[in-house]
């Protein structure tokens, strides 16, 4: 992009030096900004399961994003005379964290010391470890009971270890390379554990934990807690199962001590020896700790949703003891064993009851004690068949949610409620190896769709078809196969509950696709007429690995997928990419008017480039070269009937000669061919709707980052707008309300040199409406032969090598489009409205926006 601007700046010597340098830097900044956006989109697609990438790719991604982001910050600081030095620190911190991830080291995300379980899900693995993140996700997204509680973050662990010098001690103790013998490990283990147990917890951490306990006790009445490890699983946390410490029946006043004990278990000799055997640093690691209310268990145990040894048999395994389930986990006692059918109603296929004369129970004061079991009960089943059936159903819903076979720790409380205490992927025996796809089996099921659309997230899933209307609030049953028209973010809240998603239109780079990958929900987008084809179909199996949808439930395919699911997302590279992207991709700074829109508020690379671009344009548009003292003879303010507040930088021939010496120019002075065409489009009668559009408060409030300034603010609110022009060139940066447009265009003597680049992003409403507007823009631009790329609410369009007249026609159209679509996200309340406004635009019926006839207003747009 912008190839012409650089050439132009080099050629024109008349431009004031300091301005020319700033414009060159601005040009660099925009290029690097775009390159980071492209890297984010590319890396997001890598998570979908369609690609093979390796550590080299991750290194390259880390380098490319860092280099571009640093360049953006350098450029901004040059443009603004070093006004944002803090951004350098932020990029350095993020890049150090990303480098550490690529090198296989564990890094804590800066976070609160304590987070309530209700706030957690899988997106927070780095902050609270896999175990607590997953438990939080199950509590939030499934209709399943999980004990109340909170997590002490990995960041708290890092601060605790660091402030006590333990991280340095680890580095010193293991400074020498090569394997360490068992005796040396034992000795270091003793020393490190002792250091942790006697270390002082920093006061802010202590206070945060005590506050959380107090709140928990007050709101739940729980007397004791389970204090559990939740480590960052750098080697697949499966491997560490049972090796870290869990303490049950901990009184509130003893939680801080138990916290230290759990952290100390990171340095136990078996853990360090195991890590060493896997080629991992024996003692580098961080751990979050979960504190959950103890469940007064009548019975408890473990469930595997697939037989790990004979996964093809379609059965669940349940092991049960009376009282707390800990003895099952420890393997320290005889337990009842059940084999259940995976298919509804989960009948008991096999039962082996054990004699259990004793059990572990919670005393009235909440402590854990061994009690005797009455003789007549000791040899009877600790759970009823009905409870087993319910347990199996819950287990399979968790399996669908986690997209793999699971190992679940559970408890049935005295009040007969089922509580899930822990859930983790179940390691399935690798043997026998998967064979050829069961073609014979699959052939028995009708194929409903094949090779339609694109796979946004691979995988295999099954469930009842639920066709959703984009304009309706979503309340769909867990495990449904969601079928929708568009991959709008409207669906995002339902994705974690879905077993699969299919859409008629959409892209693999949409927001929905990103969410689907985050939750590993098999997703096919752009399938054409999925809603029509799947209407009336009951249950389907979605094989997104092969892009086929079958009628009915194909257990063989589902089992195969469960058996192999550990080979994909559990690879180191995949986990690393997820961690890297969490520091790169999320955009938290959206609203330049918000008080949080500051350098300090940037927490990802995306935030940094967004902030830098905004501030660079602001600086160029509001720069003091408009003051007479600077005598910058190429900078002008354009007077227009529209409230554009546009500053022009003329690099030669963009304005008539009589403008020299003036500070303000009008439309008649414009000689720049492309700018003239754009302004003609912008000033077309009717396209510039100046009346503020009434806002649907629901849509508005859904946009959490959008703030009050919009209220009572005309859509025409002037902002920092800038056009760099010459006779044949325009580079327009137009910020209108919450929307950002970039047009870069050169109209050459030869059509081979001519091009238009157009980018649009932003909006005031919730993301789904902004995405609808992106779809509308895309359709309009495509109808004018642009090559269009839509990612979330951002639209990029390119066209080149077309005749002079065709260029002008398109620039005028873009001018009209910019005016027409400024506030369209507000009125695009339903999917159908997109086509209504498409038709209006194409037929030149601009006029005032109201609820469009024919479109679903859904009663939400005033």
């Amino acid at each position, binding site marked *: 992009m912008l190839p012409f601007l650089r050439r132009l700046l080099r050629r024109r010597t008349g431009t004031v030096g300091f301005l020319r340098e700033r414009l060159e830097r601005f040009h660099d900044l925009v290029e690097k900004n775009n390159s980071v956006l492209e890297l984010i989109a590319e890396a997001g697609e*890598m998570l979908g399961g*369609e*690609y*093979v*990438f*390796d*550590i*080299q*790719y991750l290194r*390259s991604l880390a380098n490319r994003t860092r280099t571009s982001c640093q360049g953006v910050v350098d450029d901004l600081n040059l443009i603004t005379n070093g006004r944002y030095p803090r951004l350098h620190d932020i990029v350095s911190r993020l890049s150090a964290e990303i480098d550490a991830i690529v090198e296989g080291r564990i890094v804590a995300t800066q976070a609160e010391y304590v987070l309530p379980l209700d706030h957690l899900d899988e997106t927070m693995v780095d902050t609270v470890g896999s175990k607590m993140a997953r438990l939080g996700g199950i509590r939030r997204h499934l209709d399943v009971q999980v004990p109340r509680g909170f997590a002490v973050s990995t960041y708290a662990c890092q601060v605790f270890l660091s402030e006590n010098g333990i991280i340095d001690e680890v580095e010193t103790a293991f400074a020498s390379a090569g394997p360490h013998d068992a005796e040396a490990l034992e000795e270091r283990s003793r020393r490190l554990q002792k250091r942790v147990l006697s270390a002082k917890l920093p006061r802010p951490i202590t206070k945060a934990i005590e506050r959380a306990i107090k709140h928990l006790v007050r709101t739940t009445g729980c007397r004791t807690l389970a204090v559990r490890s939740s480590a960052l699983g750098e080697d697949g946390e499966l491997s560490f199962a049972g090796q870290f410490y869990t303490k049950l029946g901990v009184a509130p006043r003893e939680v801080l001590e138990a916290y230290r004990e759990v952290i100390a278990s990171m340095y136990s000799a078996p853990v360090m020896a195991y890590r060493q055997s896997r080629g991992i640093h024996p003692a580098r690691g961080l751990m979050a700790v979960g504190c959950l209310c103890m469940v007064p268990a009548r019975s408890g145990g473990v469930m595997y949703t697939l037989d790990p040894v004979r996964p093809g048999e379609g059965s669940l395994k349940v092991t049960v003891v009376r009282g707390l389930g800990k003895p099952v986990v420890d393997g320290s006692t005889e337990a009842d064993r059940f084999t259940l059918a995976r298919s509804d109603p989960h009948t008991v296929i096999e039962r082996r009851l054990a004699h259990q004369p004793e059990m572990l129970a919670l005393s009235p004061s909440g402590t854990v004690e061994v009690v005797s079991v009455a003789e007549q009960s000791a040899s009877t089943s600790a759970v009823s068949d009905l409870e087993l059936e319910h347990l199996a159903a819950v287990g399979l819903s968790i399996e669908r949610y986690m997209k793999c076979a699971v190992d679940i720790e559970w408890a049935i409380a005295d009040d007969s409620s089922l509580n899930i205490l822990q859930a983790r992927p179940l390691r399935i025996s690798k043997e026998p*190896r*998967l*064979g*050829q*796809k069961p073609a014979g089996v699959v052939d028995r099921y009708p194929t409903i769709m094949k090779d339609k659309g694109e796979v946004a997230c691979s995988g295999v899933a099954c469930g009842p078809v639920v066709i959703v209307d984009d304009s309706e609030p979503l309340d769909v049953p867990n495990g449904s196969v969601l079928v929708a028209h568009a991959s709008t973010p409207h669906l995002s809240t339902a994705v974690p509950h879905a077993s699969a998603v299919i859409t008629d239109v959409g892209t693999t780079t949409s927001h929905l696709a990103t969410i689907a990958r985050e939750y590993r929900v098999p997703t096919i987008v752009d399938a054409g007429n999925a809603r029509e084809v799947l209407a009336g179909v009951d249950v389907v199996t979605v094989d997104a*690995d092969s892009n086929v949808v079958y009628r009915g439930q194909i257990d063989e395919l589902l089992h195969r997928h469960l058996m*192999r699911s550990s*080979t*994909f997302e559990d*690879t*180191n*590279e*995949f986990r690393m990419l997820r961690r890297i992207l969490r520091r790169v991709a999320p955009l938290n700074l959206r609203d330049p008017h918000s008080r949080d829109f500051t350098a300090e508020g940037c927490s990802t690379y995306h935030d940094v480039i967004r902030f830098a671009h905004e501030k660079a344009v602001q600086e160029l548009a509001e720069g003091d070269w408009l003051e007479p003292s600077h005598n910058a003879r190429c900078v002008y303010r354009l007077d227009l009937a529209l409230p554009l507040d546009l500053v022009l930088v003329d690099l030669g021939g963009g304005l008539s000669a009589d403008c020299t010496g003036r500070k303000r120019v009008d439309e008649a002075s414009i000689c720049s061919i492309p700018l003239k065409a754009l302004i003609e489009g912008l000033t077309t009668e009717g396209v510039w709707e100046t009346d503020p559009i009434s806002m649907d408060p629901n849509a508005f409030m859904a946009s959490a980052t959008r703030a009050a300034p919009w209220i009572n603010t005309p859509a025409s609110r002037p902002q920092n707008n800038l056009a760099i022009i010459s006779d044949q060139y325009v580079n327009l940066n137009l910020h209108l309300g919450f929307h950002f447009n970039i047009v870069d265009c050169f109209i050459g003597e030869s059509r081979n040199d001519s091009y238009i680049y157009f980018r649009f992003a932003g909006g005031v409403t919730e993301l789904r409406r902004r995405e609808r507007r992106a779809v509308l823009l895309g359709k309009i631009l495509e109808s004018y032969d642009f090559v269009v790329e839509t990612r979330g609410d951002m639209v990029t369009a390119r066209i080149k090598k077309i005749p002079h007249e065709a260029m002008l026609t398109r620039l005028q159209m873009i001018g009209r489009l910019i005016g027409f679509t400024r506030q369209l996200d507000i009125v695009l309340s339903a999917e159908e409205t997109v086509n209504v406004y498409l038709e209006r635009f194409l037929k030149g019926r601009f006029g005032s926006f109201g609820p469009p006839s024919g479109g679903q207003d859904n009663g939400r747009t005033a």
Partner: protein
Amino acid sequence: MSNDVDVMVLDDESMVCERLRDPLVEKGYRVETFTDSQSALERLAAKHFDVVVTDLKMKGPTGLDLLHHLRTEAPTTQVIIITGYATIESAREAEYGGVYGFVTKPFKIKELMAMVAKAARKAVRARGREPQP
């Protein structure tokens, strides 16, 4: 046809082998994976493979070494080379050695599958003409 085709996957990153094994097996190929090129060479000396998918840069014998070995010892074997960004030059060199095709990491599994299918057809045709040692 794929039931009669033997495919070797060689990459010192086990992730690549893991990601390619299942889709190839599902297509009906007989698949062996190696993360150590010396072991792969030894296996090639003992068994004929129709298609070899190999990384270019590895510790020990490289993908090019493997290719040169196969050109003399098993001329009907089709070799697909996986390259990274930095190894394009070497890949061009390999082109002269009669490699069937290249894929550059990161790559789509589907694209590699299509290439393997074509290479397998070529190998089977060639095998039909030339008796194996």
